[in-house]
């Protein structure tokens, strides 16, 4: 049995496919591909596959990760990739298929990029700079136990922040994986609380899934 890890893009209109719908969508994609995907055993056998991370509705991604097993050991990774790409929905494309090298628990962070479009991008740029230079960035996070105030500053690693004249473009690492998951909207909400400048977030996308040492999760 091949333990396969596929990396796929989710872009364009595909960003409106919710995580729940993506599950159903992949099931049908596998069926259309007619790949010999491994089914669970037991009373109600179903194809086994799992997504490493959930992606928020409306986000694009270059690097979603999907694990599954192929019962034919001799099948090449290229064959698997091409069979899936032939039947994937618009906006979704497998960019890489390889054997699973690391455990899912090795995922520690994800890289995001997004733009904040504003009439006054330079003022917004200053507001962002001011916020990230503060000792803490407090947000209210909804948890199962109620609303909790969390400081996301220690976990937020800003990689770049530039003013394009039309928007403030930011890239950052945020914690991801089985333990803590932060989403760029937390950062954006925090910014809304510190400034009155109007802006619209645009093109939020996940650009990499990483291990604790900043290497690409494979």
């Amino acid at each position: 049995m091949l333990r396969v890890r596929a990396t796929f893009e989710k872009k364009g209109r595909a960003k409106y496919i919710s995580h729940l719908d993506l599950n159903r969508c992949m099931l049908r994609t596998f069926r259309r591909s007619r790949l010999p995907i491994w089914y669970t055993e037991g009373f109600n056998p179903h194809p086994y596959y799992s997504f490493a991370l959930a992606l928020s509705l409306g986000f694009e991604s270059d690097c979603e990760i999907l694990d599954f097993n192929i019962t034919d050991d001799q099948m090449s990774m290229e064959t698997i990739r091409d069979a899936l790409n032939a039947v994937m929905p618009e906006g979704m494309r497998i960019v890489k298929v390889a054997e699973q090298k690391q455990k899912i628990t090795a995922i520690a962070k994800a890289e995001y990029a997004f733009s904040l479009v504003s009439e006054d991008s330079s003022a917004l740029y200053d507001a962002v700079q001011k916020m990230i230079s503060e000792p803490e960035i407090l947000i209210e996070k909804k948890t199962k136990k109620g609303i909790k105030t969390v400081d996301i500053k220690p976990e937020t690693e800003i990689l770049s922040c530039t003013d394009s004249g039309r928007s403030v473009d930011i890239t950052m690492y945020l914690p991801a994986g089985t333990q803590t998951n932060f989403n760029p909207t937390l950062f954006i909400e925090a910014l809304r609380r510190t400034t009155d400048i109007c802006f619209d977030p645009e093109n939020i996308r996940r650009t990499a899934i990483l291990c604790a040492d900043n290497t690409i999760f494979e």
Partner: protein
Amino acid sequence: MDLKAKIEKHLLDVQKPSRYIGGEVGSVIKDKSKIDVRFAFCFPDTYDIGMSHLGMKILYSLTNKRENYWCERCFAPSEDFEAIMRENHIPLYALESLDPIRDFDFIGFTLQYELSYANILNMLDLAGIPVFAKDRTQELGQIVIAGGPCVCNPEPLADFFDMFVLGEGEEVNLEIIDLYHEMKKKGATRLEFLRAAAQIEGVYVPQFYHFSYKDDGTIDHVDVDEGIPATVRKRIIRDYDKVYYPENFVVPFTEIVHDRVSVEVLRGCIRGCRFCQAGFIYRPFREKSADAIFAQTKRLCENTGYDEVSLASLSTSDHSDIDNMLSKLIDYTAGERINLSLPSLRVDNFSESLLNKIKKVRKSGLTFAAEGGTQRLRDVINKNVSEDEIMNTCRIAFEGGYSSVKLYFMMGLPTETDEDIVGIAELAQRIVDLFYSIEDRPRGKGGVQVSVSCATFVPKPFTPFEFEPQDTREMIEHKQKLLLGSTKSKKIKISYHDANVSMLEVILAKGDRRLCPAIYAAWKKGCKFDSWEEYFNFERWLEAFADCGIDPAFYANRRFDYDEILPWDHLDYLVDKSFLVRENKTAHEAVTTPNCRQRCSGCGVNKKVGRECFASSKSNV
């Protein structure tokens, strides 16, 4: 800003945004510059409901097979997105190109149920298309057209549509589009096109027909413009086994009501239940061969990736080759881990090996459409289900481990008395008693559950009950109370429909053209999504009727005379009116009519089609 950007700007503010942006697997994208005719197939309800509609899947694929025609889908937006569309001037658009449907050649609606009529007006308005046909451009384009079962009496919508298509669309739709294409090239006007289209069998152009009424409100006569057929006959597919069937469906991302492959196995129905409109308007009975059904199932499963299949028909058990057909399907679906959902089947003449196969796939509950509480009433409506059959099947099911049964009934059927209502409760009670009389029934877990669901009878055009009045609300409420009072066991759960919904349904089903202004007024007052409990507002409808001088009881609670001109008499659904009158009289004598396979009852369809319905399947008689 282009329309797509405008839509996307707001898409994350609405529920289930994938309904509004297209891009699904199986959707057909074409190069606009190479298209001669554009058709917007509109379903007057939300995506979740409309995407489940089989007719749309068939006609969508059929039209798109023609390279130079492009058929796209369009649905009613939910309230949240409609508000955004109106606020931001986003006109109703089609999901493939995201182009406004007002620029299309055809805006086609399917009329599946009467309570979606207000949605049609709302969608036209959202699209920026004049709601009334008379206000549309004189040029050729923006033809608002409708098909589907409710077209058998389209009069309440006559003012809003340019044309209606009667019967099955697989052939006539392309004939209409072809004619349009030809005439558009020649620079014809809208009126010229409509006049020419009215010559096509199955096409009804309401503006060429003029109604006069008597003092008592009934129809006096219908004047027809010169050169226009006095009656319009519905279309049927003669070689049904060879009829086009899609090789692919659009596979939605979001969950829809019927989220599976659906394969049509037969059209028409042999049963002749007298309340059932589908049983008459879809005649004659025709079936697809087991081989065709199998091939279509396999191809659709492979192309869509669905792991669930259902069979579509009015009565799958009446397929003459059902044993072979199901056997083939079950072997295939079991091997491919596909879930085959079977309808309630008459199991009496199945082979043992098939029964064992069915047992393996069958998971759903046990359902009976008994419709009437006593044998007498079931004879009146010609529902040939006997209590013995129900009891026998329940016994087999209970012994096999089932513990819940669902029973469907109607209230307000012709000749119905209190005794028939009490009969519903008694029948349910006998099923409860049967359960507890079985020795090795499964223990524990609360025992048996019998659910009784009671709809209010709605008399419909082209049925033997088209002449019947509907019970008044007072009568229905009395019967509902009586049923509740007659139910003794806690194991029986009673539910019934809102009688007001059924009243609106009958008015719109049996109404004439004079209702058009009332439907317009109701929509103006905010009526839409009337089939959704949370939106239905009967008061507003009553106000609209009152404003327009319409007496709802004239349509709902009046017996129509046998010799009265009915609003749909100029439409020919192949079944003779004299047959419907005969069946109505037979019903009042509580006498049943055998099914079409047992004996031809002379409804007139075979004469008009020019062949016997069961010539090739005589061996099954």
